[in-house]
């Protein structure tokens, strides 16, 4: 759209061959990047240059490139998903940077997210937390009750939706000094806690999911709120408070 001059950038990127090897920051120079390009398009350009030079391209996770699949990650200049609020890395555009900038690009850092290669980490711990209770036990039948049989107060339905918009990217863990997954776990707990359909299994759900998160090696929550600030979907830490209440309720009942 704009005819603005491209940006000349110095990139410091974490390179690591595999989980076993030691990684380090490598320096790359990239010139004339359009400010209308997205951050990942900038990495595409770098990779094509690297391939043409016979060097190995930088691996990074990405897929939908519209901020919803949760695949992209990247710790950019010390912030998960980089500068800008409520966006994922794929929604970050180069107009957020200046000509001559040096940009540091690192993977998520957490014990529960081991590095696979370069900027790609293994987030399967998140899936295993969901296996522990992130569902309502209802079989497919075509004979469940009519969708409008239970009216749900709009306020609760909207709040459940807000919690359910979590994309499972892991920015909350990356932002947390304890690498806690509390925001992620609480988003799922809250979605179901706010809906009548979620009540039946509420106790076991919260106990099992919290236990699984601990087992995966995520740290405890110390209420700094860093997760909420960096969450690309603006998931509120009120969900963590709700999860704690649910957890307490379930523990007393046990």
């Amino acid at each position, binding site marked *: *759209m704009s005819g603005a001059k491209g940006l000349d950038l110095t990139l410091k990127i974490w390179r690591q061959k*595999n989980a076993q090897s030691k990684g380090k920051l490598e320096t790359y120079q990239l010139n004339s*990047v*359009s400010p209308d*390009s997205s951050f*990942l*398009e900038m990495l*595409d350009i770098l990779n094509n240059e690297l*391939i*043409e030079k*016979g*060097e190995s*391209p930088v691996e990074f996770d*990405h*897929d*939908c*490139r*519209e*901020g*919803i*699949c949760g695949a992209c990650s990247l710790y950019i200049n010390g912030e998960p998903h980089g500068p*800008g609020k409520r966006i994922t890395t794929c*929604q970050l*555009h180069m*107009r957020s940077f200046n000509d001559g900038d040096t940009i540091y690009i690192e993977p998520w850092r957490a014990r529960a997210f081991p590095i*696979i*290669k370069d900027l*790609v980490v*293994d*987030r*399967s711990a*998140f*899936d295993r937390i*969901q*296996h*522990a209770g*992130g*569902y*309502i*036990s*209802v079989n*497919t039948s*075509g004979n*469940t*009750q009519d*969708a*409008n049989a239970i*009216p*749900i*107060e*709009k306020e609760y*339905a*909207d709040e*459940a*939706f807000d919690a*359910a918009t979590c*994309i499972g990217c892991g920015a909350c863990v990356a932002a947390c000094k304890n690498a806690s997954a509390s925001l992620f776990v609480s988003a799922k707990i809250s979605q*179901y806690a706010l*809906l009548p*359909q979620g009540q039946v299994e509420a106790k076991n759900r919260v106990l099992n999911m919290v236990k699984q998160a601990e087992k995966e090696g995520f740290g405890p929550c110390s209420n700094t709120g860093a997760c909420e600030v960096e969450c690309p979907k603006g998931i509120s830490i009120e969900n963590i408070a709700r999860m704690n209440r649910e957890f307490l309720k379930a523990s007393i009942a046990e």
Partner: protein
Amino acid sequence: MSLDSNIPEGPLKDKWTNHKNNINLVNPANKRNIDVIVVGTGLAGGSASATLAELGYNVKTFCYQDSPRRAHSIAAQGGINAAKNYQGDGDSTYRLFYDTIKGGDYRSREANTYRLAEVSANIIDQCVAQGVPFARDYGGLLDNRSFGGVLVSRTFYAKGQTGQQLLLGAYSAMNRQIAKGKIKMYNRHEMLDVVIVDGKARGIIARNLVTGEIERHSAHAVVLASGGYGNVFFLSTNAMGSNVTAAWKAHKKGAYFANPCYTQIHPTCIPVHGTQQSKLTLMSESLRNDGRIWVPKNLEDAKAVREGTLKPTDISEENRDYYLERRYPSFGNLVPRDVASRAAKERCDAGYGVVNNDTNEGVFLDFSAAIDRYGKEEAHVRGIENPSTDEIRKMGKKVIESKYGNLFEMYQQITAENPYETPMKIYPAVHYTMGGLWVDYNLMTNVKGLYSIGEANFSDHGANRLGASALMQGLADGYFVLPYTIGDYLAADIRTGKISTELPEFKEAEQKVTAQIESLLKNNGSKTVDYFHKKLGLIMWNKVGMARSIESLNQAIEEIAALREEFWNDVKVPGDANELNSELEKAGRVADFLELGELFARDALERDESCGGHFREEFQTEEGEALRRDDEFAYVAAWEYTGKPSEAIVHKEDLKFENVELKTRSYK
């Protein structure tokens, strides 16, 4: 081989019920001895995996993403249709069926489409029971909105993130079965071939994308739910990884590929910004409920807008051309997608485009009238007499924000323009493919035991899909159709026992996969995979895109074949086979797109008519509308692979219309 669609006898409305009553079932104890492979974890694959596992089958599910939750169904924005008639506006199963047939420009199967409409209501019940937080009104009941090509409100939604919420619902159902061990999940795995033993699909060859290991997996049936092939155009609204490989490998092993030329070019996407662009972003069709589409009436105004010397908000009402409202007064801005896209192209080709890029292609989507209307309504509700313009706009913006907030934010992030203050700029982009693997009424391809569901098959949308119907089809296939029809086939397999992966067919398929990987890595050419993919995309967009002609299609066929040769001679793929290597993954996918693209153009060339998303310049009315030729072309073109795309053989399945009258589609 003849094409039998296996449509059950009897009246349209009883076919599905009768069919379910008459097909074979597998008893629960026997299901435990039967394995099913599902490839893909979008709405179709996710819901099918969960339901098959609930029924008792052993399911092995594969996705190339790092988690099944990331399949591209997640990005669907606007909503899901269902004939619930909660709004009491005259909706019914028949009306949804009729709208779908008409919207598809009379190129889909009546029986499949009717079944889709029939099970649509069950989907909403199922999803609510799973805890999907659909939008609700103040009475606590489910809310609906309208989509293009229909005159009722039957679309259920969760803000602009309906696909996400439905997919997370299917993912949660899968998680329950993964926890029970009934689904074995293979993340970061890509299917690279299907294995056929004695004429039956008995397994797949997959690459572990982390270790590079080539793995053999066997099963009694294989279900492909691998999505569409829109990325053959390079730029599309598909995810970067969306590909045709699973479907194409199946095609090369004998499965017919139906109607490849039926592509949906979605009218409301953010225009291309430059040559470094990697993908396009959709702005939900739901925006056409409230946004009005226009271009300047005068060429000089369009030029001034492009040059930045005239602001769109400074163009007066009488100097704007609301061309959809002008051409199609009864449907206005809510005409079907193919019609809206072509109308935008027509205006831009005539020089009225408003975007300052290489092609000037773009039109306005304007919310100012809606902001004004909602603001006045709100003032009335609040009892504010004689509100000021500022007050009205402020209240109106709040209403718009509550409806489309996330879409407006997304637009602003990408373009750095504020759509509450200035109209959005939009242009059509490749979004969905109606064509796909040919399947019968049971969703089985012509290869026994090989099924295809969701966008990967061709079945329900004809030549154009209506908005909010992709989610409906994916979940209908996965929750309510395939899990029952597959039993009819598997009933014969209860004594088969485990399929061995040591069979020669597995070995042979594995060797071919390994050989292709080696040849890509050893090629040592000079150009990157992206170079070829972008070139292919440009050929497709310019010559096989929104308007196609004999001349452009013949050129495309030639150019694609030449590009394919260049690819195999000169592509450069770095790295090794035994590591995470996304360039290698891309290379394999582009190799398949380079074959599909040619078949796609051939299919378009042989269909001497215009219908839905397929517009041939030679076949149009004086007013520039699509000219269908029912006497000769009311059929499905199912292509059989014989060694090269140029030598594929077409098989025709005639479409019989017994319940609707074939009419020229009119949205005027």
